[in-house]
Protein backbone atom coordinates (compact mmCIF):
# COMPACT_ATOMS: atom_id res chain seq x y z
CA UNK A 1 0.00 0.00 0.00
CA UNK A 2 2.78 2.34 1.02
CA UNK A 3 4.59 1.52 -2.18
CA UNK A 4 1.51 2.36 -4.30
CA UNK A 5 1.10 5.65 -2.49
CA UNK A 6 4.72 6.50 -3.12
CA UNK A 7 4.39 5.68 -6.82
CA UNK A 8 1.15 7.64 -6.95
CA UNK A 9 2.76 10.62 -5.30
CA UNK A 10 5.71 10.42 -7.67
CA UNK A 11 3.43 10.31 -10.73
CA UNK A 12 1.34 13.19 -9.37
CA UNK A 13 4.48 15.23 -8.78
CA UNK A 14 5.72 14.49 -12.29
CA UNK A 15 2.40 15.64 -13.70
CA UNK A 16 2.47 18.78 -11.59
CA UNK A 17 5.97 19.58 -12.76
CA UNK A 18 4.99 19.16 -16.38
CA UNK A 19 1.89 21.29 -16.08
CA UNK A 20 3.84 24.05 -14.40
CA UNK A 21 4.72 26.60 -17.06
CA UNK A 22 8.43 26.86 -17.67
CA UNK A 23 9.16 30.31 -16.40
CA UNK A 24 12.23 32.14 -17.63
CA UNK A 25 12.81 35.53 -16.05
CA UNK A 26 16.48 35.74 -17.05
CA UNK A 27 15.88 38.64 -19.46
CA UNK A 28 13.89 40.51 -16.79
CA UNK A 29 16.81 40.04 -14.40
CA UNK A 30 19.34 41.07 -17.10
CA UNK A 31 17.39 44.28 -17.72
CA UNK A 32 17.78 45.11 -14.03
CA UNK A 33 14.32 44.13 -12.82
CA UNK A 34 11.68 46.72 -12.07
CA UNK A 35 14.21 49.44 -11.39
CA UNK A 36 16.27 48.77 -14.52
CA UNK A 37 13.20 48.63 -16.76
CA UNK A 38 11.82 51.88 -15.30
CA UNK A 39 15.15 53.56 -16.04
CA UNK A 40 15.20 52.04 -19.55
CA UNK A 41 11.71 53.34 -20.32
CA UNK A 42 12.60 56.82 -19.07
CA UNK A 43 15.52 56.92 -21.52
CA UNK A 44 13.30 55.40 -24.24
CA UNK A 45 10.72 58.18 -23.78
CA UNK A 46 13.49 60.76 -23.98
CA UNK A 47 14.77 59.12 -27.20
CA UNK A 48 11.24 59.07 -28.70
CA UNK A 49 11.14 62.80 -27.97
CA UNK A 50 14.33 63.17 -30.03
CA UNK A 51 12.86 61.23 -32.98
CA UNK A 52 11.37 63.90 -35.21
CA UNK A 53 9.78 61.66 -37.84
CA UNK A 54 7.49 59.91 -35.33
CA UNK A 55 6.84 62.68 -32.82
CA UNK A 56 3.46 63.53 -34.38
CA UNK A 57 2.15 60.12 -33.27
CA UNK A 58 2.73 61.13 -29.66
CA UNK A 59 1.11 64.56 -29.70
CA UNK A 60 -1.96 63.45 -27.73
CA UNK A 61 -0.18 60.82 -25.66
CA UNK A 62 -0.59 60.86 -21.89
CA UNK A 63 3.12 60.40 -21.10
CA UNK A 64 2.56 59.16 -17.51
CA UNK A 65 0.16 56.47 -18.66
CA UNK A 66 2.42 55.61 -21.62
CA UNK A 67 5.38 55.22 -19.25
CA UNK A 68 3.43 53.02 -16.83
CA UNK A 69 2.13 50.72 -19.57
CA UNK A 70 5.52 50.51 -21.28
CA UNK A 71 7.16 49.43 -18.01
CA UNK A 72 4.44 46.82 -17.41
CA UNK A 73 4.71 45.54 -20.97
CA UNK A 74 8.50 45.21 -21.07
CA UNK A 75 8.39 43.66 -17.59
CA UNK A 76 5.88 41.06 -18.73
CA UNK A 77 7.56 40.41 -22.11
CA UNK A 78 10.92 39.87 -20.43
CA UNK A 79 9.42 37.31 -18.05
CA UNK A 80 9.01 39.57 -15.04
CA UNK A 81 6.25 39.34 -12.39
CA UNK A 82 3.97 41.97 -13.96
CA UNK A 83 0.51 42.11 -15.43
CA UNK A 84 0.21 44.22 -18.57
CA UNK A 85 -2.95 46.30 -18.18
CA UNK A 86 -2.55 48.22 -21.42
CA UNK A 87 -4.24 47.67 -24.75
CA UNK A 88 -3.47 44.92 -27.23
CA UNK A 89 -0.92 45.87 -29.85
CA UNK A 90 -3.26 45.75 -32.83
CA UNK A 91 -6.16 47.93 -31.61
CA UNK A 92 -3.91 50.47 -29.91
CA UNK A 93 -2.13 51.24 -33.19
CA UNK A 94 -5.31 51.25 -35.27
CA UNK A 95 -5.80 54.31 -37.42
CA UNK A 96 -2.23 55.47 -36.85
CA UNK A 97 -1.02 53.97 -40.12
CA UNK A 98 2.52 53.56 -38.78
CA UNK A 99 4.92 52.93 -41.64
CA UNK A 100 7.77 50.43 -41.70
CA UNK A 101 10.15 53.34 -41.52
CA UNK A 102 8.43 54.80 -38.46
CA UNK A 103 8.42 51.42 -36.75
CA UNK A 104 12.16 51.20 -37.40
CA UNK A 105 12.68 54.73 -36.07
CA UNK A 106 11.05 53.77 -32.77
CA UNK A 107 13.01 50.50 -32.71
CA UNK A 108 16.16 52.60 -33.16
CA UNK A 109 15.06 54.80 -30.25
CA UNK A 110 14.79 51.63 -28.14
CA UNK A 111 18.23 50.46 -29.34
CA UNK A 112 19.73 53.80 -28.27
CA UNK A 113 17.95 53.54 -24.92
CA UNK A 114 19.28 50.00 -24.39
CA UNK A 115 22.79 51.24 -25.20
CA UNK A 116 22.52 54.21 -22.85
CA UNK A 117 21.14 51.98 -20.10
CA UNK A 118 24.18 49.74 -20.52
CA UNK A 119 22.23 46.58 -21.37
CA UNK A 120 24.53 43.85 -22.74
CA UNK A 121 24.36 43.05 -26.45
CA UNK A 122 22.91 39.57 -25.81
CA UNK A 123 20.03 40.91 -23.70
CA UNK A 124 19.55 43.75 -26.17
CA UNK A 125 19.14 41.29 -29.04
CA UNK A 126 16.71 39.19 -26.98
CA UNK A 127 14.47 42.17 -26.29
CA UNK A 128 14.70 43.41 -29.89
CA UNK A 129 13.67 39.98 -31.17
CA UNK A 130 10.54 40.21 -28.96
CA UNK A 131 9.77 43.73 -30.20
CA UNK A 132 10.34 42.66 -33.82
CA UNK A 133 7.84 39.81 -33.39
CA UNK A 134 5.08 42.39 -32.71
CA UNK A 135 5.82 44.39 -35.86
CA UNK A 136 3.01 42.93 -37.97
CA UNK A 137 0.44 44.05 -35.35
CA UNK A 138 1.84 47.56 -35.27
CA UNK A 139 2.54 48.72 -38.84
CA UNK A 140 -0.05 49.86 -41.39
CA UNK A 141 -3.00 49.47 -38.96
Amino acid sequence: MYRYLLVGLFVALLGACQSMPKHDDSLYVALGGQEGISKLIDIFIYEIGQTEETIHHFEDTDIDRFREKQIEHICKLSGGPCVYTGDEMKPVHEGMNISESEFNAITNAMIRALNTAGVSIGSRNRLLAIIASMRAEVIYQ
Partner: protein
Amino acid sequence: MKFLYNLCLLLVTSQLIFLSSKVIAGGKLVGTSGVTQIEGSGGGGLVPWATLPGYGTRDEKGGAAFFSAVSVDDFRMSSYGASYAYYDRFEISFAHQKFKSDDKKTDLAQNVLGMKVRLFGDLVYTAWPQVALGAQYKNANNTNSILSLGAKDDHGVDYYLAATKAWLDGPFHRNFVLNTTLRYSKANQLGLQGFGGDKRNSYQGLFEVSAGIFITRYWVLGTEYRQKPDQLSSVKEDDWKDIFIAFFPNKKSAISFALVDLGRIGGKGRQTGGYLSIQLTY
Protein backbone atom coordinates in the same frame (compact mmCIF):
# COMPACT_ATOMS: atom_id res chain seq x y z
CA MET B 1 25.28 48.69 -76.41
CA LYS B 2 27.82 51.26 -75.27
CA PHE B 3 25.09 53.85 -75.45
CA LEU B 4 22.88 51.77 -73.18
CA TYR B 5 25.63 51.53 -70.57
CA ASN B 6 26.24 55.24 -70.60
CA LEU B 7 22.54 55.87 -70.33
CA CYS B 8 22.23 53.54 -67.36
CA LEU B 9 25.27 55.00 -65.66
CA LEU B 10 23.83 58.44 -66.13
CA LEU B 11 20.46 57.29 -64.81
CA VAL B 12 21.88 55.65 -61.71
CA THR B 13 24.22 58.54 -60.99
CA SER B 14 21.54 61.15 -61.41
CA GLN B 15 19.24 59.21 -59.11
CA LEU B 16 21.99 59.07 -56.50
CA ILE B 17 22.58 62.79 -56.71
CA PHE B 18 18.84 63.33 -56.47
CA LEU B 19 18.66 61.08 -53.44
CA SER B 20 21.62 62.61 -51.66
CA SER B 21 20.23 66.08 -52.21
CA LYS B 22 16.84 65.17 -50.82
CA VAL B 23 18.40 63.03 -48.09
CA ILE B 24 15.81 60.33 -48.03
CA ALA B 25 17.20 58.68 -44.94
CA GLY B 26 16.31 55.03 -45.13
CA GLY B 27 14.29 53.62 -42.29
CA LYS B 28 15.83 50.18 -42.03
CA LEU B 29 18.10 49.07 -39.22
CA VAL B 30 21.82 49.61 -39.56
CA GLY B 31 23.60 46.76 -41.34
CA THR B 32 20.46 45.42 -43.04
CA SER B 33 21.35 47.07 -46.36
CA GLY B 34 24.12 44.56 -46.84
CA VAL B 35 26.99 45.68 -49.02
CA THR B 36 27.67 45.60 -52.77
CA GLN B 37 29.20 42.50 -54.28
CA ILE B 38 31.89 42.65 -56.98
CA GLU B 39 29.40 42.58 -59.87
CA GLY B 40 27.55 45.60 -58.45
CA SER B 41 24.46 43.88 -57.01
CA GLY B 42 23.36 44.23 -53.40
CA GLY B 43 24.85 41.35 -51.46
CA GLY B 44 27.92 40.24 -49.66
CA GLY B 45 31.35 40.47 -51.27
CA LEU B 46 31.33 37.73 -53.89
CA VAL B 47 27.69 36.66 -53.77
CA PRO B 48 24.55 38.63 -54.68
CA TRP B 49 21.92 38.51 -51.92
CA ALA B 50 18.19 39.16 -51.86
CA THR B 51 18.91 42.48 -50.13
CA LEU B 52 18.55 45.77 -51.99
CA PRO B 53 21.07 48.61 -51.67
CA GLY B 54 20.48 51.31 -49.07
CA TYR B 55 18.04 51.46 -46.21
CA GLY B 56 14.82 52.30 -48.05
CA THR B 57 11.61 50.69 -46.83
CA ARG B 58 8.50 50.14 -48.95
CA ASP B 59 7.82 53.89 -48.82
CA GLU B 60 11.34 54.96 -49.66
CA LYS B 61 14.08 54.89 -52.26
CA GLY B 62 17.70 54.08 -51.64
CA GLY B 63 20.98 53.60 -53.35
CA ALA B 64 24.63 52.78 -53.02
CA ALA B 65 27.95 53.54 -54.66
CA PHE B 66 30.91 51.25 -54.18
CA PHE B 67 34.55 50.62 -54.92
CA SER B 68 36.18 47.24 -54.39
CA ALA B 69 39.71 46.05 -54.92
CA VAL B 70 41.08 42.52 -54.87
CA SER B 71 44.77 41.76 -54.76
CA VAL B 72 45.92 38.14 -55.08
CA ASP B 73 49.28 36.54 -55.85
CA ASP B 74 49.47 37.26 -59.59
CA PHE B 75 46.41 39.42 -60.30
CA ARG B 76 44.65 42.58 -59.30
CA MET B 77 41.00 43.31 -59.77
CA SER B 78 39.06 46.48 -59.17
CA SER B 79 35.38 47.15 -59.46
CA TYR B 80 33.30 50.25 -59.02
CA GLY B 81 29.70 51.16 -59.64
CA ALA B 82 26.41 52.36 -58.31
CA SER B 83 22.99 50.94 -57.62
CA TYR B 84 19.55 52.24 -56.95
CA ALA B 85 16.65 50.66 -55.07
CA TYR B 86 13.07 51.60 -55.67
CA TYR B 87 10.56 51.14 -52.82
CA ASP B 88 12.32 48.06 -51.46
CA ARG B 89 11.19 46.22 -54.57
CA PHE B 90 13.45 46.84 -57.58
CA GLU B 91 17.17 47.25 -57.86
CA ILE B 92 19.14 48.49 -60.84
CA SER B 93 22.92 48.45 -60.79
CA PHE B 94 25.92 49.17 -62.90
CA ALA B 95 29.51 48.08 -62.35
CA HIS B 96 32.78 48.27 -64.22
CA GLN B 97 35.41 45.64 -63.50
CA LYS B 98 39.08 45.63 -64.38
CA PHE B 99 41.26 42.58 -64.13
CA LYS B 100 45.02 42.70 -64.63
CA SER B 101 47.95 40.39 -64.10
CA ASP B 102 51.11 41.64 -62.45
CA ASP B 103 53.13 40.45 -65.47
CA LYS B 104 50.95 42.71 -67.68
CA LYS B 105 50.04 39.82 -70.01
CA THR B 106 46.42 39.81 -68.90
CA ASP B 107 44.37 42.98 -69.11
CA LEU B 108 40.63 42.36 -69.08
CA ALA B 109 37.58 44.47 -68.27
CA GLN B 110 33.82 44.23 -68.39
CA ASN B 111 30.66 46.17 -67.66
CA VAL B 112 27.85 44.64 -65.68
CA LEU B 113 24.30 45.89 -65.79
CA GLY B 114 22.18 44.34 -63.05
CA MET B 115 18.51 44.15 -62.21
CA LYS B 116 16.83 42.54 -59.26
CA VAL B 117 13.30 42.24 -57.99
CA ARG B 118 12.41 41.31 -54.43
CA LEU B 119 9.71 38.68 -54.77
CA PHE B 120 8.62 38.35 -51.14
CA GLY B 121 9.77 38.31 -47.55
CA ASP B 122 11.63 40.68 -45.28
CA LEU B 123 15.22 40.05 -44.29
CA VAL B 124 14.52 40.61 -40.58
CA TYR B 125 10.81 40.51 -39.90
CA THR B 126 9.25 37.55 -41.70
CA ALA B 127 9.60 33.96 -40.59
CA TRP B 128 10.58 33.03 -44.16
CA PRO B 129 13.58 34.56 -45.95
CA GLN B 130 13.65 37.56 -48.24
CA VAL B 131 13.69 36.13 -51.76
CA ALA B 132 14.75 37.96 -54.91
CA LEU B 133 15.22 37.17 -58.57
CA GLY B 134 18.02 38.92 -60.42
CA ALA B 135 19.88 39.16 -63.71
CA GLN B 136 23.33 40.47 -64.58
CA TYR B 137 24.03 41.44 -68.17
CA LYS B 138 27.78 41.39 -68.77
CA ASN B 139 29.74 42.68 -71.70
CA ALA B 140 33.47 41.99 -71.73
CA ASN B 141 36.08 44.07 -73.53
CA ASN B 142 39.07 42.46 -75.30
CA THR B 143 36.91 40.22 -77.45
CA ASN B 144 39.86 38.79 -79.38
CA SER B 145 41.83 37.61 -76.37
CA ILE B 146 38.67 36.15 -74.82
CA LEU B 147 37.84 34.18 -77.94
CA SER B 148 41.44 32.99 -78.23
CA LEU B 149 41.08 31.45 -74.76
CA GLY B 150 38.32 29.27 -76.17
CA ALA B 151 35.29 31.23 -74.94
CA LYS B 152 32.31 31.28 -77.28
CA ASP B 153 31.06 34.79 -76.62
CA ASP B 154 32.10 38.14 -75.14
CA HIS B 155 28.74 38.93 -73.57
CA GLY B 156 26.06 37.04 -71.68
CA VAL B 157 23.46 37.11 -68.95
CA ASP B 158 23.56 35.46 -65.52
CA TYR B 159 20.28 34.79 -63.74
CA TYR B 160 20.04 34.18 -60.02
CA LEU B 161 17.56 33.43 -57.28
CA ALA B 162 18.68 34.54 -53.82
CA ALA B 163 17.17 33.83 -50.40
CA THR B 164 18.51 35.80 -47.43
CA LYS B 165 17.42 35.64 -43.80
CA ALA B 166 18.58 37.42 -40.69
CA TRP B 167 17.82 36.01 -37.27
CA LEU B 168 17.55 38.33 -34.31
CA ASP B 169 18.66 36.70 -31.11
CA GLY B 170 20.22 33.55 -32.60
CA PRO B 171 22.81 31.40 -30.84
CA PHE B 172 24.85 33.30 -28.22
CA HIS B 173 22.03 35.91 -28.39
CA ARG B 174 23.65 37.32 -31.51
CA ASN B 175 22.04 38.31 -34.80
CA PHE B 176 22.85 36.08 -37.78
CA VAL B 177 22.47 36.33 -41.52
CA LEU B 178 22.41 33.44 -43.97
CA ASN B 179 22.17 33.67 -47.75
CA THR B 180 21.87 31.06 -50.46
CA THR B 181 21.95 31.93 -54.14
CA LEU B 182 21.35 29.71 -57.13
CA ARG B 183 22.97 31.17 -60.24
CA TYR B 184 22.27 30.11 -63.79
CA SER B 185 25.31 31.09 -65.84
CA LYS B 186 27.72 30.51 -68.72
CA ALA B 187 30.29 33.05 -67.52
CA ASN B 188 34.02 32.25 -67.23
CA GLN B 189 35.63 34.07 -64.28
CA LEU B 190 32.54 36.28 -63.79
CA GLY B 191 32.48 36.89 -67.56
CA LEU B 192 35.89 38.56 -67.69
CA GLN B 193 37.04 35.54 -69.71
CA GLY B 194 33.87 35.48 -71.77
CA PHE B 195 30.94 33.09 -71.87
CA GLY B 196 30.77 29.41 -72.71
CA GLY B 197 33.84 27.38 -73.64
CA ASP B 198 35.30 24.50 -75.61
CA LYS B 199 34.62 22.09 -72.72
CA ARG B 200 31.06 23.23 -72.19
CA ASN B 201 28.84 25.80 -73.82
CA SER B 202 25.53 25.66 -71.98
CA TYR B 203 23.95 27.25 -68.93
CA GLN B 204 24.50 25.51 -65.62
CA GLY B 205 23.22 25.96 -62.07
CA LEU B 206 25.84 27.20 -59.61
CA PHE B 207 25.46 27.35 -55.84
CA GLU B 208 26.60 30.29 -53.74
CA VAL B 209 26.31 30.71 -50.01
CA SER B 210 27.15 33.33 -47.38
CA ALA B 211 26.87 33.27 -43.60
CA GLY B 212 27.59 36.02 -41.10
CA ILE B 213 27.24 36.88 -37.44
CA PHE B 214 26.72 40.38 -36.04
CA ILE B 215 29.35 40.36 -33.32
CA THR B 216 28.08 43.78 -32.29
CA ARG B 217 25.51 46.05 -33.91
CA TYR B 218 28.16 47.37 -36.30
CA TRP B 219 30.54 44.50 -36.99
CA VAL B 220 29.72 41.41 -39.03
CA LEU B 221 32.05 38.44 -39.34
CA GLY B 222 31.32 35.87 -42.02
CA THR B 223 32.26 33.59 -44.84
CA GLU B 224 31.23 33.06 -48.45
CA TYR B 225 31.48 30.34 -51.04
CA ARG B 226 30.83 30.74 -54.73
CA GLN B 227 30.76 27.77 -57.06
CA LYS B 228 32.29 28.45 -60.47
CA PRO B 229 32.10 26.68 -63.81
CA ASP B 230 35.17 25.24 -65.54
CA GLN B 231 34.50 25.49 -69.25
CA LEU B 232 37.84 26.35 -70.83
CA SER B 233 40.59 23.80 -71.42
CA SER B 234 43.18 26.55 -71.87
CA VAL B 235 42.75 28.00 -68.35
CA LYS B 236 41.43 26.32 -65.20
CA GLU B 237 38.76 27.94 -63.05
CA ASP B 238 38.06 27.09 -59.40
CA ASP B 239 35.37 27.91 -56.84
CA TRP B 240 35.86 31.13 -54.85
CA LYS B 241 35.71 31.53 -51.10
CA ASP B 242 36.37 34.20 -48.53
CA ILE B 243 36.27 35.08 -44.85
CA PHE B 244 35.05 38.63 -44.36
CA ILE B 245 34.57 41.28 -41.73
CA ALA B 246 32.24 44.18 -42.46
CA PHE B 247 31.89 47.38 -40.48
CA PHE B 248 28.75 49.53 -40.60
CA PRO B 249 29.68 52.67 -38.64
CA ASN B 250 26.40 54.33 -39.64
CA LYS B 251 23.69 54.16 -42.31
CA LYS B 252 25.81 56.13 -44.78
CA SER B 253 28.79 53.86 -45.19
CA ALA B 254 30.20 50.37 -44.90
CA ILE B 255 33.69 48.96 -45.19
CA SER B 256 34.44 45.30 -45.73
CA PHE B 257 37.67 43.43 -45.71
CA ALA B 258 38.12 39.81 -46.73
CA LEU B 259 40.72 37.13 -47.11
CA VAL B 260 39.97 35.50 -50.45
CA ASP B 261 40.90 32.24 -52.11
CA LEU B 262 40.16 32.48 -55.84
CA GLY B 263 41.76 29.16 -56.81
CA ARG B 264 43.57 28.89 -60.12
CA ILE B 265 43.23 31.77 -62.57
CA GLY B 266 44.58 32.27 -66.11
CA GLY B 267 47.05 29.41 -66.09
CA LYS B 268 48.62 30.50 -62.80
CA GLY B 269 48.53 28.60 -59.51
CA ARG B 270 46.16 29.08 -56.60
CA GLN B 271 45.47 32.75 -55.96
CA THR B 272 44.95 33.99 -52.42
CA GLY B 273 44.99 37.52 -51.09
CA GLY B 274 42.93 40.39 -49.76
CA TYR B 275 39.73 42.18 -50.67
CA LEU B 276 38.70 45.66 -49.61
CA SER B 277 35.38 47.31 -50.36
CA ILE B 278 33.97 50.70 -49.51
CA GLN B 279 30.31 51.49 -49.88
CA LEU B 280 28.38 54.71 -49.51
CA THR B 281 24.63 54.40 -49.08
CA TYR B 282 21.83 56.91 -49.51
